[in-house]
């Protein structure tokens, strides 16, 4: 494994296989908290923080515990358990020692306990047989891609708010159409190949 492999994995996770625009993971927060760029950034930060840590911890749990007892088939259950406990732990830790960061992340931290993007990042580590370092880098990069998508989309939505579409399109329908168009634009990156 060289540094270029890590960079390729990260670039792929951010751009070509963006979690939201090409895999459609984490669509709930993507549509739910993209009203304002500032809240979108808060959510992105929280996801980045949790995803990076959870990928490291789930890697350890998987290889130290599940593999040893041939329990790979239970990884989904185990990962959910680990992530939920980890988020709780992080929340308590931050509230005590880094209150500034705790206030900045605020409500978003507990919200992502069951975010499917966090779980899928952990599952993809196993599927792609990443080692410890690449797992963490992949989690970090995938979350960066998530942040990029949600912040860009919040900017689009700010413009949609003042637009005057036909009544049937107003609000959520237009939001979904805009999301689809953005996903289509990102599919333009899928031609990039490093192998």
């Amino acid at each position: 494994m060289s540094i270029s492999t890590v960079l390729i994995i990260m670039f792929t996770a951010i751009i070509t296989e963006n979690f939201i625009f090409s895999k459609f993971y984490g669509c709930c927060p993507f549509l739910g908290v993209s009203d304002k760029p500032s809240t979108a950034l808060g959510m992105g930060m929280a996801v980045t923080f949790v995803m990076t840590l959870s990928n490291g911890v789930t890697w350890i749990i998987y290889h130290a515990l599940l593999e040893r007892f041939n329990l790979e088939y239970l990884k989904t259950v185990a990962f959910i358990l680990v992530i939920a406990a980890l988020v709780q732990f992080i929340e308590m830790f931050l509230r005590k020692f880094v209150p500034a960061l705790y206030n900045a992340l605020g409500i978003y931290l507990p919200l992502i306990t069951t975010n499917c993007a966090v779980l899928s990042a952990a599952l993809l580590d196993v599927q792609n047989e990443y080692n410890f370092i690449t797992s963490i880098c992949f989690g970090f990069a995938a979350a960066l891609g998530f942040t990029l998508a949600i912040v860009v989309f919040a900017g689009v939505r700010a413009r949609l708010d003042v637009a005057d579409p036909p009544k049937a399109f107003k609000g959520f329908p237009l939001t979904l159409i805009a999301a689809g168009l953005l996903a289509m634009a990102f599919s333009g990156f899928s031609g990039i190949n490093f192998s």
Partner: protein
Amino acid sequence: MFKEIIIPIAIFAGLGLVFGIILAVASKIFSVKRDEKAEKIDDVLPHANCGACGYSGCAAYAEAIAKGEAKELNLCTVGGEPVAKHIGEIMGVDVVAKKRYVARVMCSGSNQYSKKKYAYHGTADCLSAARLSGGDKMCPNACIGLGSCVSVCKYHALSVIDGVAVVNPENCVACRACVDICPKNIIQMVPYDSNFWVCCVSAENGPMTREHCDTGCISCRLCVKACEYDAISINDFHATIDYNKCVSCGKCMAVCPRHIIHTKKS
């Protein structure tokens, strides 16, 4: 066979137990002492999270009071007197409740009175309309009447009637959300008790106002002369009532030739 079931169960029960213990210990180690007073005050506050007190929400205001950082204990306009008294009891000090204020839209130029400079076909939003040479009405201080204040009001206290926003004082909690959003700055806070207010803030001189609007203050000073308590003055070409001096006698309303001194009763 038996092993294949018992091992996963044991491992997962163990995992859950370990995580549970870790979290339980962590919650003890990392516990942050929350002020008891802050929690009590938080319970008393109305949880509208409107921001009228100047803090980001009810919880933030409660914390500020408990720490002694809040400027005053009667800043919650939504809760009014009962909440201020409760907070006073919790903190052990006497709190004088603030006078109740309500928002008033200072414009009488409904569609039948005000003249328009162009026909506006755009987003039904005052902020957008105000960017097109300050709205469609000729008077620069006229209510645009597209209801940005209506949509920002959480208490359904505002409605647009015939092109001018009107406040229902019973629903208004003085959170000032409409005051902040109005692009024309024509919403003002008026004491709930005062019966009269000048419903025009036109900053144009008399002849100009007369040209732009069939109602609207022309600064004729009749009300100033009629007032026996020296409560009315003309500033910026429109009459203003000093609510500290006003005794709600209604003489100004009777003499106003433009009928812009409004009263609650009408």
